[in-house]
């Protein structure tokens, strides 16, 4: 006669509860999606010249997206909360120029002809990274913490 291993009955019951819960969650999600009536945002924004000042045309919350000089320090909040807004104008190639998985060229080297852009690692960054890394290593981490750090490992073994 088959005898369940100790705890197996509880485990099976627990698994059934989990699967049932996930199925109910899926059904609920499908119902909620079906009831959503929002119109998707536009796939593409007409091309603009220079840094876009959204408030020139949009007099609502979109003025928050104005690409003013300090936008480079604020763009992370938009990217992590409303990346769809970014994708209306930018594709991933734009993000990947800085936020790379593996990279050998500094962003500022690719765009030396645009010194007005707030690109990281301008000038002598070999020495400067020791200073920036000491001041605020958290500013290095999003790009080099788990990706794009193979060049770092040449010295940081």
């Amino acid at each position, binding site marked *: 006669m088959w005898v369940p291993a100790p705890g197996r009955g509880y485990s099976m019951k627990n698994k059934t509860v989990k699967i049932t819960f996930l199925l109910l969650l899926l059904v609920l999600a499908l119902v909620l999606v079906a009831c959503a009536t929002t119109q998707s945002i536009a796939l593409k924004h007409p091309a603009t010249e220079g840094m876009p000042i959204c408030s020139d045309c949009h007099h609502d919350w979109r003025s928050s997206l104005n690409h*003013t000089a300090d936008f480079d320090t604020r763009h992370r909040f938009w990217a992590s909360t409303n990346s769809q807004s970014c994708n209306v104008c930018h594709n991933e190639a734009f993000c*990947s120029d800085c936020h790379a998985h593996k990279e050998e060229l500094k962003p500022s080297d690719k765009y030396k*002809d645009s010194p007005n852009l707030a690109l990281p690692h301008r000038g002598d960054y070999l020495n400067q990274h020791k200073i920036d890394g000491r001041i605020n290593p958290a500013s290095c981490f999003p790009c080099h913490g788990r990706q794009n750090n193979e060049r770092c490992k040449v010295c940081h073994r």
Partner: protein
Amino acid sequence: MKIPTKHNHTKMGSPPSWMRFIVVSLVVFLAGLPVTASAVDVTGTSRTYLTSREQADGTRLLPGYEYLNFQIQDLGSDTISAHFGGWAGYDFKEKTGDNDLQYGYLSYKSKTANTIINLGRVMVFEGVAAERVDGVYARTDLMANFGISAFGGNPVETGAPLGDVAASSGNNSIYGARLTHQTPGLYAIGVSYLKEERNGEDFRKEEGVDLWLHPMNKVDLAGRSNYNAITKEWMENTYNLVLGPFDRLRFTTEASWINYKDYFFGTTLSAFTFQPGILDPNEKVRILGENVVYALTNKFGISADYKAYSYNIAGNAKYYGGNFRYTGASGGAGLSLHRMDGDADRLKYDEYRVYGYSKLGKIDVSLDVIDVKYDSAINGVSNAYSVSLAAGYDLTDRLKVGADVEYAKNPDFNRDVRAFLKAIYQFDVGTGARKGV
């Protein structure tokens, strides 16, 4: 040259399995398209670079790179598209090469409910997650202004630090989700969760709350608080407040609290594991910053910024200065002066920068000069600088060629000269008219 900077190139071999998979998938998918395939719209950019730079031992490297990104729209339906971005490089002196797939996925975007499903190598930016994943990402609006997103797959990361080889070579997985609620134009709040396993063991468990608040015109608050569910402590709390513009004045305030032990917990780089005496792994930092911008005219602007770093263990530091900026129709210029004033000797220096750029018909030129004066010399150098000059020419509306040269002196190089040639070709001028887009 005083410290090694040699980069480890890997031998150029056969394409990795993921690349073969994606290429084969795309070919099969395209071959199977119905007659509407004639409407397929391919846009993209090819960027070819050839650089010359010096290595630690004095020899010169001559690497060339091809960066290719494209997207294929209307794949049988105007809601389906394919996206690809990657690069390949080869050093003509060392005869070695490398390559990388930055992203590559099939995408479905619904015309309603902002429903998106991406399948392949996807980039995920959702609350606590800022990841590259070989897997799936999906999001959709729900009823009553709720929204939900989820992702899962294999994390696209480098290996764990040395000594933890097993954790970087086994079966790894990452998944997460974010639930949001918003009142359009007023606020958006999200809660998110992320879990990453390496070899079946928890590598990261993170929870986050993100917020955007627009209570009235000219007031914007954005920020996030992320919690490390393994160390049971907050990783970071970062908030940013923008006030203005009031007439010509705008204020930006930033406040961050970061706990090193919890923030840098899941890293694959030994530099972030820290060592007492250099950076204490139990360090905590509070960063408060203010940036005030005043627009003199539509073209001229000045700004002042101040940032204070307060550490629990190491000494404090403050960074402050000012900028002047001119932005014209066919060019611009900028000047900035900053002072880093910290308790440690290395954190005492003045920083100057001046730049200009101009477009004259089909020709563009730019100049950038950066100078740093250290209070205490580093490697015998108290004045480090770099001067770069760049020029470009629009051969056609779609093809641009350019060259630049940089001369630098710094604590690591007595004389560093770098040259850079590039050719940029855009498949579709209409959607690629803006640089970087």
